[in-house]
């Protein structure tokens, strides 16, 4: 209850109350003098060790001393790092074995996501605006040109990295039992990467993208059974207006609908699908016993033939 300070109050309280009030205030002042400095000293002590604060410990679950335990915890307790096991084959850290291509691919995917999100701020997938937006991005947006360049080149780099990754995986026989399924996931991811890049090609709505996509999708015309120029397509009633290409483009030519479809596949559809497969891919890497090697060589003579 707040004290009523009415110096010229007309309805004064009883004298006892005033006395009590006075005593109370004195006491409070007294406590301020003694207790506050003590608390201040305490606070300084706490702040001297920031790693002991509640805020710190709530974030970092373990100590940072260079002990094997902490090394392991550093990985395990981190959502980003716990894709890795705590310990791995001593030779697996060698670059010459893995080429780091899987990691680089993933890193490029992240870079592409970030730059892509920023590009989306400036881009409208419509025939009227798309090309103009790219011009705007190049000429008006601070770092816009750099942003677009990075997105474009990272996309190309990612395709290269994915292909090299596959190359390496094959050469080290890493698809062999028990990793057969993960190889398949990888193949799907390769296809998705190509599709991601391909759908992005059209978005600037320039001649390059337009004709690349036209050439690309013209092949769909010839899909057997489903394309109007494909084997048995016409026999099945396929026309330019109902075949698989029409479905891909949302029209019989590369136009506004194709642009929109391309955009949605590029920005939402394929990234989500790819993310799901990536999660699967990484999960299976761990579940299938980490990366395949470098394993000790096996001699032909040591192979035990499985019973048929």
């Amino acid at each position, binding site marked *: 209850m707040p004290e009523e300070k009415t110096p010229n109050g007309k309805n004064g309280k009883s004298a006892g109350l005033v006395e009590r009030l006075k005593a109370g205030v004195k006491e409070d002042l007294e406590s301020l003098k003694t207790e506050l400095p003590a608390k201040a000293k305490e606070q300084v002590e706490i702040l001297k060790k920031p790693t002991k604060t509640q805020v710190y410990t709530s974030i970092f679950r373990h100590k940072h001393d260079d002990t094997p335990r902490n090394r392991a915890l550093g990985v395990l307790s981190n959502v980003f790092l716990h894709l890795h096991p705590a310990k791995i084959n001593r030779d697996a850290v060698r670059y010459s074995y893995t080429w780091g291509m899987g990691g680089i691919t993933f890193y490029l995917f992240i870079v592409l996501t970030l730059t892509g999100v920023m590009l989306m701020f400036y881009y409208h997938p419509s025939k009227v605006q798309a090309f103009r937006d790219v*011009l705007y991005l190049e*000429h008006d947006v601070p770092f816009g040109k*750099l942003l677009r360049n990075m997105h474009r080149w990272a996309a190309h780099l990612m395709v290269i990295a994915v292909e090299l990754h596959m190359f390496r995986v094959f050469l080290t026989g890493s698809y062999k039992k028990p990793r057969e399924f993960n190889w398949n996931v990888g193949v799907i991811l390769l296809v998705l990467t190509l599709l991601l890049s391909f759908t992005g090609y059209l978005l600037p709505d320039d001649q390059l993208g337009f004709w690349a996509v036209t050439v690309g999708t013209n092949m769909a015309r010839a899909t057997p059974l489903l394309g109007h120029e494909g084997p048995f397509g016409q026999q099945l009633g396929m026309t330019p207006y109902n075949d698989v290409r029409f479905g891909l483009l949302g029209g019989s030519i590369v136009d506004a609908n194709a642009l929109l479809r391309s955009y949605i596949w590029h920005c939402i559809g394929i990234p989500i699908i790819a993310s799901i497969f990536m999660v699967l891919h990484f999960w299976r890497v761990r579940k299938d016993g980490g990366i395949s090697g470098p394993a000790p060589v096996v001699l032909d003579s040591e192979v035990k033939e499985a019973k048929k």
Partner: protein
Amino acid sequence: MPEKPIPENDPVVSKSLAPHYVISMVILMATFFWAMWDEDFGQRPWKAFQHEWKDRYSTFLKSARSQSGDAQKEVEANPDYQKLKQDYDSASQNAAPRIQELREKLRDLAARILAVQDGTNHFTDRRAYVTAATYAIETETSSSSKQRMQRNLEEYKAKPSTVEMPDGKLQTFKNFGELEEAYNELKNERTQFSAELGELIKPVNEKKELMDSFLTDHMVSLTPSQLTNLQNGVEVWTPKIRQINVNEHNADIVREDSSQIVDRCESCHMGIREPVKLTAAAMSLPGKKPDVYARAFTSHPEPDLLKIHDPDKFGCTPCHQGNGRATTSVEKAHGNYEHWLWPVFPRANFEAGCQVCHSADMVVVTNDVGWVVSEGKDLFRQRGCVGCHRFEGYDKEPEDLLSVAQQIKQLDQEKKDNFKQAGDLMKQADKAESNEEANRLNDRAVALKVTNSKLDLRIVQLDRSTKSLLEDMKKVGPNLKDIRLKLNKNWIPVWLKKPSDFRATTKMPNFRLSDDQIKAISAFIWQSALKDSLHKHKLGNAAHGKELFESRGCLACHSIGEGDQLQGGTFAANLTRVGEKANYDYLVRWVHNARERTRPYCPLEKKDIGPEDYKKKGLPYVFDLEHSRCPNDGHELQVQNMTVMPSLRLSPQDAEDVASYLITLKKQDPSSYADASFMDDPNLKDEGKKWVRHFGCAGCHEISGLEEEGRIGTELTIEGSKPIERLDFALFTEIAQRGGVEPITDPEDLARLPEGPAKQPWYDQKGFFEHKLAEPNIWDKGKDKPETEKLRMPNLHLTKDQIRALTTFLLGSQENPLPPNYQYRPLDYRRDIQEGWWVVKKYNCMGCHQLIPGQKTSLMGMARYKDAQEQLPPKLLTEGARVDPEWLQRFLKNPSLSATDTNRNGVRSYLQVRMPTFSFSENELGKLVRFFQALSRQPFPYIPEEVPVLTAKETEMARSLFSSTAAPCLKCHATGDPAHDRFATAPNFLQARGRLKPDWMERWMLDPQAIAPGTSMPSGLFKRDNGHWVFSGPTPASFQGYDKDHTKLLVDYILQLTPEEQRRVGAAMGRSSAGSGSSSGSKSSGNGGRGAPE
């Protein structure tokens, strides 16, 4: 690896990556900084421009200021300025003491107001309490507390307040009311003093303004203080993008969804809109040649154009093109890179930008001459490009004819339907159940009948426009149906071989025909031509013919002589060798009336109608503009030769004389041409027709059987925006892209290239057009093609300048990337101007008349007129303001202004050169009249103002002035008296009425030189006296005390002048033979004006 020794420590665990990290981090940081630097400078080269600009412009302004200072001193020395300055000085001195006093008072008041307002117990605080309390009372619901609060407020208000005044004294106000009153009074006082101060300062300031504006008005360049302001602006300039966002400034032109125009050109071209003239030389570093900066910093060379096209509203790129947004490099900004569709127009062709929006204008700039793009547009028609290439706006009569025919068909159908429906309705009405119903139905039937009458009238109208269109339809080349009558047969193959060998300036291009083709073509046209016979004429007087030829104005269009000797206009053929090719009898007919046709052509039957067709219907074989219906089907006939050549209304005798003269013009005898009897070989006819068709001869010539041939070339309306990939450089594609090699080797053609042999890459529209125009078959070079597939475009033997003009025109002919509102398609008087120029150019009006100040006519430069400028055709600079449009229409229709005596000029009978009869169609007549009215911004239709009837005294006064020796009117103006008119160099006054507009006449008398520069009529006849215009010579005595404008009096007098009056005056002037001119006097009055009393 096995060979290497195994290290002691486990390399996987012990190897340090620190150096790797250090290096890569350093590089990473460097990359980041590089990105920053690139973003800030690498991508922003304009910053360097702006720094440079700051230095150079500042230096320039400094030197400009010192020059301007001298100029200012000169102006300041002017006594008028001195007087203004004195006025200002004395006024400011007079007002100074009181101003000082008032300023002090105001300062004091301000302090006191502040004290009352903000001092202890200040007013503002108390007022806030009062208003808050008042609000609380107003919103209080309980009446008791309302009363209580009211009391409290009263108490509060009653409290006194003491204020410490600025002088330290304490002043007590008894209550709030008193305080408020005092405060308000102080404020009132302040307002009063401020107002007084304002009143006092105003006249002083006005004088100062007068002084300053005198200075700015009398200085050609900017004043030093203006320059100082500019310099201050430059010095505090920090580099930033300068851009024009057209949408911001011009929401009504640019719609939301249309392309946004954002032009940043001024980020480098900083000087474009500076109010001083900046040349590249002035912006160069001292002693250096203009560099890239100096050239970028010049001010716009045509500031007047910027006034019409305010850059804030138009931006830069709509005219110049380029990539207005780009700022990363000069090439990008100018759009000079592979993937920009609208690169900046080249320096030599910058006027292409006009064409982009002004494609509907024949003359782009109405107040200037020598515009390259206008010349290009003109050439496109003159040289017959339209014959093969469609271009929106050119020669659209055939298309219009088609659409008119279609409309008529539609209306006919509508009429039929209406008729049927009306019948139905009436039938229904007869059987209707109620009278109301019957009446309603009948009314509808009646309405339909009325509608049908309207439709009928509309059809009549359309028929007339068909006639107009047939009249308007012209061909660039002569009618080849007449060649049997017209030409020396043996001359034809020689001509076809290479027309420019016979006549260097001819419009007929060189088709590079082989001998076989020539044989076939000449055989076909010879055999398909008409075989009618011509009226035979005797040879006339060639000497007289020569005189007529040179004086009647033939040379306004035709030229004569070759090379240096060439004189006359370039609009029509050079006649130096006409005697070698032409048939005398045909020439006579042609000179007499070029439009006279051998046989009329029926577009419906698609054949030439002969006497036999007329005979069948029992009609006389007469066809002219009045008798233009087909005897077979009543359809409109083509009754004229489709030439723009007018009739000079020569007498038959004169026509024979002129023709006799022309037939003497030759270099070799007609009989010396090699025999060409193969032209009668019927076997060649079909082959010939094939080639005639192939080369599109019918585009420019009327040829039997090929009247309805279409154009064989590509449409060029939007040729300028054709993607470069669509322009076939054939085997020279790579060469053009890389530059350096010039494919044209023919020295004549090489000399046509405006920029000379290619040095840079020329793989662009400009390069294509220029090469194509210089040597049209250049893309066939090195190719092996059959004759029929070779490029057909003939060599037009153009000059460099002509090619530049045509290229400019084509470059600008684009599918407009701009919003449609940018197109110059006005609907008001400017549209009349736009349409009029097409007609004016079509008939080469400017060969004789000056329509734009400074424009040269063909006749002007000729020796004949050097000492006799008054013999030149009149200048038409203010024609619309000068003449009554109705009169003008009559005049244009028949310039002789007489139905019988046509062998003369209707207005300026003293001129040797003659205004010809062009037989304008109704359509073109209307366009021309509206054009002249619009050019002078005259209201249309024109309602003549009432001319006040002069009193007898006024008439007497006017007459005395008019006839005084001091007033020279009749010395030059014709009267109709042949003896007097021998010396006349000006029109008869009797023609003024009904022809001239009084306002214009008055203006003309005052300063004719300002209306028609160089006219014989002198300026300075009147002077300003007491606010009136009075005659500047000695005035007759009767003018004593007359206080109105003498000019006005004269105008009214002239407009009421009768032939008798004129004769009387003439006689009074003591002219030897003034009385004998009655016959011609009455003649002219009969044609001169609307019902001029005899």
